[in-house]
Structure formats: structure tokens, C-alpha cells
């Protein structure tokens, strides 16, 4: 019953190895910065992929949850002197509750309507962050105190790298667990045919709400860490374009592939940095990637590659 080398375990070990070895190739603070941003994006994308790739429910507003987590940490630690861990968990709890409350009405919508619904939600969050100047500092943004965990302060790039890398690994592990369970099969069944899933005894609304909340909470946690790491946040973290970025990462890496979400996050975090000179064209890049994937490689990079390897072996 115990096979040591299963695809899931192999994938986890490979990811752990990459995270462990990567510092050998990171030569300066900028490299570390990009790696840490990859990790933070990947945590959001793994959660978002549970929602989009597995359960088949689109969200164009997840940057909103990321920003809410970031602002919760900034405000609770900066203005109210909460310990950062408490603020991070408090933000996650708040975002969890908020996403739970809006999930039911929103997830009743399907297809285009769901896209529009989540888009509206993200825009509302973005507007609130911009307008509530007293609370959020408005468009100018606000500073965030550094992260302190029971007296220990992660300082320096390598420490942050290890922290984010460890959390990414844990997130991937949890996601793989979930997918490989009756809950995961139920989510995929919702994607395949909602009607048939219901007839098989699956309360589709309940599962859609659960996975929506999980993905929102992961975005919030990542946002909190980002806030402390960068030391400064602005409403740009929650903008519509950030939501599109996140979806593009998921689509590029591969829908319904957890490792794909990590790969997608990695590529689309690195490429804009390489093309820093063409910053004005960033939106164009993401738009082109999204279109190209839909036309030529709908399954995404990782699933297509896996299929190619399987066919080679035959």
C-alpha cells in the first residue's frame, strides 16, 4: 500500500529541492527580492487554482483579498500595536468571514456573470482602500512595521526567502492533500457537471463556498506577509490589473495543476522584471499571454508538458 514514489510526493520533493538549491544561484538582493515575490504570488495562485482550475469557478477579484490581508496587517500592527502574527491571523479570519458572506450570492452566478460579480467585488475593495484615507492613507499608501514572531525578526533576504519558501511548500502540500480526497473529487465534479455532481450527493454550493473561502484566506495570508516584507503598501496591490495578473499566472502554468500554478507564478513574476525597460507594456504582455494560452495551449504549460512526457514514454 505504501509506494514511496508517487507523483504527488515526487512533485513535493522536487519543489523542496528547488527551493533549497535556488539560493546558490541568487547573487544579489534583487534576485532574492524576485524569488520572494515569486513565492508570495505562488501561494495566492495555488489557492486560486483550487477555485479556478479545479472547481471551475472564475474570480477576477482575488487581488482584493490580497490587499485586504496586507492592509489588515498594516493597520492592526501599525495603528493598534497588535503582534504581527495576531494581525496576520486576524486579517485572515476577517477575509475568511467576508469571503464566506459574499461567496453564496456570488457563486450562484455562472460563467460571465461570475466573472463580472468577482470583478465588481475587487473594484469595490479597491475603491474602499483608495477612499478611506483616514484608515488606509488613501492612494499614497501606508508604511508597515516589520514582522516580529515571538521576539524573532526575520531580517535579511535569506531569512525572508526561507520563511516564504517554507510557507509555499506547506501550501502546496495542503492543496495536494485536498485535491487527492473526496473533497477534491467533489470540486472537480462541480467543474465537470454541476447537475451530475448534485445527483451524486454533492452539495455543490457548499463546496464552492468552501474553496472560495480557502483561496481568499491564502491570498490574505500572502498579502499580510507581503506588507511586512515590503514595509510599504498602497491600493495598487488590490487593483483590477493585479487580479488579472494572478489569473494569468494560473492559466499559464496550467489549470487544475498545483505545480503549474507555482510555475506560472514564477514565470510571470520574473519576465516583467527582465523587461523592466518596457514597463509600460506590462499589461500588454499579460494580455498577450492570456490570449495566446487560450488559443494555443488551453491546458497550460505543466499539464501539456506532463502529457507530452507520458506520450513519449509509450
Amino acid at each position, binding site marked *: 500500500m505504501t509506494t514511496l514514489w508517487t507523483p504527488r510526493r515526487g512533485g513535493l520533493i522536487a519543489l523542496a529541492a528547488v527551493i533549497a538549491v535556488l539560493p546558490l544561484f541568487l547573487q544579489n538582493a534583487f534576485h532574492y527580492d524576485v524569488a520572494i515575490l515569486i513565492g508570495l504570488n505562488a501561494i495566492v495562485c495555488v489557492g486560486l487554482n483550487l477555485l479556478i482550475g479545479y472547481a471551475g469557478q472564475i474570480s477576477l477579484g482575488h487581488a482584493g483579498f490580497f490587499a485586504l490581508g496586507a492592509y489588515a496587517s498594516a493597520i492592526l500592527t501599525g495603528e493598534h500595536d497588535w503582534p504581527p502574527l495576531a494581525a496576520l491571523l486576524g486579517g485572515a479570519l476577517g477575509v475568511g468571514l467576508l469571503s464566506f458572506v459574499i461567496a453564496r450570492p456570488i457563486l450562484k452566478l455562472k460563467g460571465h456573470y461570475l466573472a463580472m460579480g468577482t470583478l465588481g467585488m475587487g473594484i469595490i475593495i479597491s475603491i474602499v482602500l483608495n477612499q478611506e484615507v483616514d484608515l488606509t492613507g488613501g492612494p499614497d499608501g501606508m508604511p508597515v512595521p516589520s514582522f516580529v514572531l515571538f521576539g524573532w525578526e526575520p531580517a535579511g533576504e535569506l531569512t525572508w526567502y526561507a520563511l516564504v519558501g517554507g510557507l509555499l511548500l506547506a501550501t502546496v502540500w495542503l492543496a495536494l*492533500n485536498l485535491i487527492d*480526497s473526496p473533497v*477534491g473529487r*467533489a470540486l472537480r465534479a462541480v467543474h465537470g457537471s454541476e447537475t*451530475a455532481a*448534485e445527483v451524486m450527493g*454533492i452539495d455543490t454550493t457548499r463546496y464552492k463556498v468552501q474553496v472560495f473561502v480557502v483561496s481568499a484566506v491564502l491570498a490574505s495570508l500572502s498579502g499580510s506577509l507581503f506588507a511586512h516584507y515590503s514595509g510599504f503598501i498602497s491600493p495598487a496591490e488590490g487593483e483590477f490589473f493585479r487580479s488579472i495578473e494572478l489569473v494569468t499566472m494560473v492559466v499559464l502554468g496550467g489549470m487544475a495543476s498545483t505545480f503549474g500554478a507555482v510555475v506560472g507564478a514564477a514565470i510571470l513574476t520574473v519576465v516583467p522584471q527582465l523587461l523592466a525597460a518596457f514597463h509600460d507594456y506590462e499589461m500588454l504582455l499579460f494580455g498577450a499571454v492570456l490570449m495566446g494560452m487560450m488559443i494555443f495551449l488551453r491546458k497550460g504549460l505543466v499539464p501539456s508538458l506532463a502529457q507530452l512526457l507520458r506520450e513519449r514514454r509509450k
Partner: protein
Amino acid sequence: MSLLRVENLSKSFGGVAAVADLSFTIDPGAIYSIIGPNGAGKTTVINLISGIFRPSGGRIFFEDQDVTGLPPYELAGRGLSRIFQNLQVFANMTALENVMVGHHLHCDRRFLPALLRLPHIVRGDAACRDFAAELMASVGLGDYVHAEASMLPYGALKRLEIARALATRPKMLLLDEPAAGLNPAETDAIDGLIKGIAESGVTVLLVEHDMRLVMGISDRILVLDHGRWLASGTAPQIRRNPEVVAAYLGGGARER
């Protein structure tokens, strides 16, 4: 005691009555068939019983409990399952996983244990996998266990839907045209499969156009026409009923 009792059931779509004032009862263990011309309302009846549609009027009782308006997943929990006339296979999974989804109600489906992959989840999944593979073999799908569901030929997809529905361990199975699109040999095999299901104690509600199949295996037959009850009885009674012959079994085209 009847297993299913339908009283004055009606369903209209924008003023068009798809089912009107329909009443019937099905005894446990029976193979009960509903026949009628295209558009008679057969699929609508199945959609009403399985909770896909809410009735416009009337009541449905399952095991003497009023189940009118309950959602499909609740009805599945009470022992009702079905297949779809226009297949609804989960094309994004393997055939085996399709059947495993059918077993969902009998698995630990809580979020937290799944997230942590507790040992009993691993054991439960292995047992579910074995159960599903065995069930597939028993309906003649042994060759397709590891195939992607989207790759299965049409006849196998019909069986896959039956296997998936059986995996819920239903008390009653609603079969909407299980033989449609099958060749005669495949139809004969389905005939045997349905008999086997009934013998295992599962009550069957069958909707089917293949009259040889229906007349051969049904304990009772209900004839629908334009959403209304036209006749019901045993196969010989139905075959001799002049109204049924006129409306459906033969000569209908001439009279209309």
C-alpha cells in the same frame, strides 16, 4: 408500502405544460417504465423526481416522506439516483474517478481531515478506489478503469453513468433512455444489466423508446402523452390498449 408516490404532479415552462396532473406509485423492487412519444414529458418527470426541477404543482413522496422540492443532493442521500439522457459524465476525470465521485456520500467528506490527509482519509480513498473498480468490472467496464472518461465510446459512457449512479448505493435508480443510441447486442446487454440491478434489490424507473426492451422487463408501464397520463398496466395490457396503440405504439402517424 410504495417506495415512490407521485400525486398530481405538474410542471410548466412558460405556460407550456410539460407534465400535467400526473399521479402514480412504484412498489419496491419493481421495474417500472414510462413510455410516450418524443416531448411527452418523460425526462421532465425524471427531473422532477430527482430534484433538478421544482414542480409547479403536486407532491412527491419517497418512502412515505414528502420530498417535494428537495435539492438533488438531499435526494441522493435518501437513496435516489439517476442517469442522464444527454450524458453528464465528468469529462475532466478518469472513468474510475467518475465512479468514485458516485461513492461520495459514503466517504469522509469533511474539509479539514482532507486538508491534513489524515490516515483514515488515505485508507478510505483506497477502499473507495477498490469499490469503484469492482463496480466497474461488474457492469462490464473492467477494460476502462484507468481510461480518461472523455475517451470512452458511447456505449461505455452509458454504462459508466449507470456505474456512477450505482456507486451511490441507491434504493431507486432512474434510467433515462439507457439504450438510446446502442446497437442490438449492446441493448441486450443493457437488458441483462437492468434485470441484475432490479434483482439486487434496487427499484428501477425506466424511460425508454426501445419497445422490445420495455415490454420484456417491465413489471408495470405508464404511458404519457402530452404530459398527461394516458394508460398504465402490465406489458400485455399496454400492448392491447387501443388508445396507446393509436397515440404511440403504431398507427399514430396516420391518425394525427
